C-alpha cells in the first residue's frame, strides 16, 4: 500500500512539474511569436489590401444559424461591415423553426435565386438559395437547408457553396472585428509553406457594447462565469497556441473562429456531423491528410483579438458547454487512435495528440483522483502538512502565474479594455479561478467523459442567447 501511495504521489508531482515546464516553454515561445507577428504585420501591410484590391485574395465566411432570431440580424450586419475588399458571407439557415429566415429576408431584401448548388461534401439537402436585391448586400448569400442536427452539417452546406480558396468558419453568436480578414490572411500570404489553417484570439462578448453589429466598447464580462472564461480563453490562445504555432504543433483551430483552406476541407470530406468536437476533428484530419501525402503544411495563430463570442452566463450553460467539450475530446482519441504515437504522422502523432491526451484529456481525471487521494490521506493521517502547503502553493502558482503572463501578453498585443482596472479585474479573478471555477470545469469534463461512454443521445446544446443590442444601452463613441 505504501508503495502505491508513494508511486501515485511521485507520478502526480512529476506530472505537475512537466506541465509547468511545458507551459513556461510555451509562454517563452508565445512571447517571441507575438513580438515577431507585431513587427511583421502592421497597419501598413493591412492597408495594402484596400489600396490594391485586385491582388487581395478572396475569403468566404460561413456561419450556420439555427433558431437565432435574437442575434441573426446583428451578426450579419457585423460581418457585412468587415473592412476587406473581396469577401462573401454565406449564412446557412439550418432548418430554423423561428423567424431567422424571415428576419434575414426582410432586413437584407433577399430573393430566391436558381438553385445552382454542388454537393462537394455531404450534408442534408439544400432547399433554396437567397441573394439580396440590394447591391449594398451583394456579398450576402443565404443557404436554406433541411436541419442536419449538428453545426458540422450546416458548415458543410456552406462549404459546398463558397467560391473562394479560403473560408472562415464562425459561429452565429460571434462578432468579428472589422480588420479580421486583413489580419488573418497576412500569415497565409507571408509563408513559403502552404498555410492550411489560421486561428486567432477569441474573447467574451458578454459585457461589451455593440451598436448595430459594430463593437464600440470592449469590456471584460460582468458575470462571474464568463469572466473566468475570458482569462481561460486568453491563456489558450496567447500562451498555448501562440507557443505551439512556433513549432507548428497547434492541436486545434477553434470552431468559434477558424480560417481554413477550402480545397483541403473538401478533400478531407468536410466537417464530421457525428463529432462533438468538429473543430479539433477537422484540424486533426487536415494534418493527417497532409502527412499522408508527404506535403508540407503550416497552421498559424495570430495574437490579435478578432472574434467575440457569447460565453456561458451561468453554471448550467457552462455545464452544457464543458460536457460537450469533454465528449468531443474523448471521441477524438477514439476516432483518431491510430494517429496516437504513430511516427508516420510526425508532430501530430508524436507530440500534439500525446500532449492532448496526457495534459488535456487526463488532467481532470488526475485532478479528481488526486482530490480523492488527498481526502484518503487526510482521514488516515498520512499528510505531512508543511509539504502539503508547499505543494498546494506550487500548484496554485502554476495557475495564477500563467494567467498573469497571459494578461500581460494581452496588453502587449493591444489595449482592448479602455480602463486599466478592467485588466486588474481579470488579475483578481484569476486568483480565485482555482477555487471558484476550475473545479466545475473538471467536474463537467468528467461528466462529459462518462456521458460519452454511457451513450446517451445528445443534442448540440442550446446556448441561451442574450443578444447583443438589447442588454445595455449603447453609446457610440
Amino acid at each position, binding site marked *: 500500500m505504501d508503495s502505491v501511495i508513494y508511486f501515485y504521489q511521485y507520478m502526480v508531482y512529476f506530472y505537475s512539474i512537466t506541465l509547468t515546464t511545458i507551459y*513556461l516553454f510555451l509562454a517563452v515561445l508565445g512571447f517571441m511569436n507575438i513580438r515577431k507577428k507585431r513587427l511583421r504585420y502592421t497597419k501598413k501591410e493591412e492597408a495594402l489590401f484596400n489600396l490594391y484590391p485586385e491582388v487581395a485574395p478572396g475569403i468566404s465566411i460561413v456561419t450556420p444559424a439555427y433558431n437565432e432570431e435574437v442575434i441573426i440580424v446583428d451578426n450579419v450586419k457585423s460581418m457585412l461591415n468587415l473592412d476587406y475588399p473581396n469577401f462573401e458571407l454565406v449564412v446557412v439557415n439550418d432548418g430554423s423553426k423561428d423567424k431567422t429566415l424571415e428576419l434575414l429576408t426582410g432586413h437584407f431584401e433577399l430573393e430566391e435565386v436558381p438553385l445552382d448548388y454542388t454537393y462537394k461534401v455531404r450534408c442534408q439537402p439544400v432547399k433554396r438559395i437567397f441573394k439580396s436585391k440590394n447591391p449594398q448586400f451583394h456579398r450576402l448569400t443565404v443557404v436554406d437547408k433541411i436541419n442536419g442536427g449538428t453545426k458540422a452539417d450546416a458548415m458543410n452546406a456552406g462549404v459546398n457553396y463558397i467560391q473562394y480558396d479560403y473560408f472562415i468558419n464562425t459561429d452565429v453568436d460571434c462578432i468579428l472585428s472589422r480588420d479580421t480578414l486583413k489580419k488573418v490572411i497576412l500569415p497565409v500570404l507571408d509563408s513559403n509553406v502552404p498555410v492550411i489553417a489560421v486561428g486567432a484570439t477569441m474573447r467574451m462578448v458578454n459585457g461589451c457594447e455593440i451598436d448595430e453589429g459594430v463593437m464600440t466598447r470592449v469590456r471584460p464580462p460582468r458575470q462571474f462565469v464568463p469572466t473566468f472564461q475570458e482569462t481561460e480563453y486568453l491563456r489558450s490562445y496567447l500562451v498555448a497556441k501562440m507557443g505551439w504555432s512556433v513549432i507548428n504543433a497547434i492541436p486545434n483551430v477553434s470552431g468559434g473562429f477558424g480560417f481554413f483552406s477550402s480545397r483541403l476541407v473538401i478533400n478531407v470530406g468536410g466537417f464530421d456531423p457525428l463529432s462533438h468536437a468538429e473543430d479539433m476533428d477537422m484540424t486533426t484530419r487536415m494534418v493527417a491528410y497532409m502527412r499522408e501525402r508527404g506535403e508540407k503544411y503550416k497552421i498559424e495563430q495570430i495574437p490579435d483579438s478578432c472574434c467575440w463570442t457569447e460565453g456561458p452566463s451561468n453554471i448550467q450553460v457552462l455545464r452544457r458547454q464543458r460536457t460537450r467539450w469533454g465528449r468531443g475530446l474523448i471521441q477524438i482519441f477514439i476516432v483518431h487512435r491510430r494517429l496516437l504515437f504513430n511516427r508516420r504522422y510526425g508532430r501530430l502523432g508524436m507530440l500534439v495528440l500525446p500532449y492532448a491526451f496526457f495534459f488535456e484529456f487526463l488532467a481532470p481525471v488526475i485532478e479528481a483522483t488526486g482530490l480523492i487521494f488527498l481526502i484518503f490521506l487526510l482521514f488516515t493521517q498520512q499528510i505531512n502538512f508543511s509539504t502539503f502547503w508547499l505543494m498546494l502553493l506550487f500548484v496554485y502558482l502554476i495557475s495564477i*502565474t500563467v494567467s498573469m503572463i497571459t494578461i500581460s501578453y494581452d496588453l502587449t498585443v493591444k489595449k482592448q479594455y479602455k480602463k486599466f482596472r478592467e485588466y486588474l479585474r481579470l488579475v483578481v479573478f484569476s486568483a480565485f479561478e482555482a477555487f471558484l471555477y476550475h473545479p466545475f470545469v473538471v467536474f463537467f469534463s468528467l461528466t462529459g467523459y462518462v456521458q460519452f461512454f454511457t451513450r446517451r443521445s445528445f443534442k448540440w446544446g442550446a446556448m441561451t442567447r442574450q443578444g447583443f443590442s438589447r442588454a445595455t444601452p449603447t453609446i457610440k463613441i
Partner: protein
Amino acid sequence: MDRIKFYFYYLDSQFEGFAPIIRITVFVVMLLLFLYLLSLSRLFLINRGISKRRRRRKEIRNKYENGIRDVICSRVNLDAEDISNRINLHKSDNKHKWQKEMFTKLLLSIKEKDREKINLNNYNEILYLLRLENYWENEISTGRTGRKIRGIRKIEELTTEVVSGIVAPLLYHRNENLRKLARSEFIKFEEQDAFRFLEEEDFDRKFNRLDEIRLHSSIKQKSQEQALPLLAQWVQNAQNIDFKCFLIREIAYFKQEESAPYLLEIFKGSRDSSVQAEIVKALGILQYEGALPVFTSQFKLYKLSIQYNIVDAIGRIGKEESLPFLFDIYDDAYNNEMKLKVLEAIQKCRDKDNILLDQR
C-alpha cells in the same frame, strides 16, 4: 547582486537536508513567484507606457495639429522659417526620439485625411524643419532590425523623395523580412535600375504571396511615374514558378499586349501547369486572338485547371468562330463546373458578337 546571492544561499541553507523533491519544488515555487511578480510589474509598466504615449501624442496634437494642418493645406508656398514662426515650433519640442515619432504620426494622419489639399512644397518644408527624414534615415542606418523595418515603412509613407541609397545596405540583409521589404521599396525609390531584383534571384529566394502584393504596389506606383519595361523579359529566365506566375499576372494587369506572342511561345514550351494556366488567363485578359488555335487544338490534353482558364479566355476574347468549339466542349463535359463555365463563355461570346444562339 551580492545581496541576491546572499538571499539565495540563505534560502538554500534553510532547505539543506531536505529531499531533492522538496528542494526542486521550492526552487520552482520561487521561480513562479518571480515570474508572477515580473508579469504583474510588466502589466503596470506597459499600461504606464501606453498612457504616457497617449499623453505625449495629445500634447503634440494640441500644440501643433491646427498650425501644421493650416500650413500643409495652404495654397501659399512658405519656407521653413515662415513655417516655424507660424506653428510656433519650440526647439525643445523637437529634440527627443518620441517627439520625432509623434510628429511623424501627426503628419501622416493629416496627410491621410487631407490628401487632396496638400501643398507639396509646404509639406516638404515641414519635413525639413522637423528633421524627420534625417531621423528615420538614421533609424534605418543604425537601428536594430525592428527599428530598420519601422524606419523603412515610415520613410516610405512620409516622403516620395527618398534616395534609394538609404535602403541599399539592406538589400542583401540576412533578415528575410527586412531584406524583402527593402527590395520592394527599392523599386519605388530607385531611379536608375529600379527593376534590378526582378532579374536577380527572382526578387528573393524566399518569394511569397505577400511579396507579390508589395511588389505589385511598388510596380503600380512606379508605373504612375514612368513607363514600365516589358515584364515578359524576366518571365522565361525566372526559376521560381510562383514568381513566374506573378510576372504573368502583372503583364495582364498592366495590359502589356506586346508581350502576348512571347507568352504564347512560353505556353507552348512550358511543362508547368500552373504557368500554363496563368498564361492562358493573361492572354484572355489581353484578348489575344492568336492564342485561340493553340488553345483549342489540344484542349482535351490539358489539365482541368488549364481547360477552365481556356474556356474563360475564349469567353473574354468572344469570337463567333469559337462557338462550335464551346458547344462541343459542353457536350463532352463530364462535370457541372465545366458546363457552367462553357455556358458563361457562350453567353459572353453571344453578347460580344450579338449573335442569336440556336438552341442546343
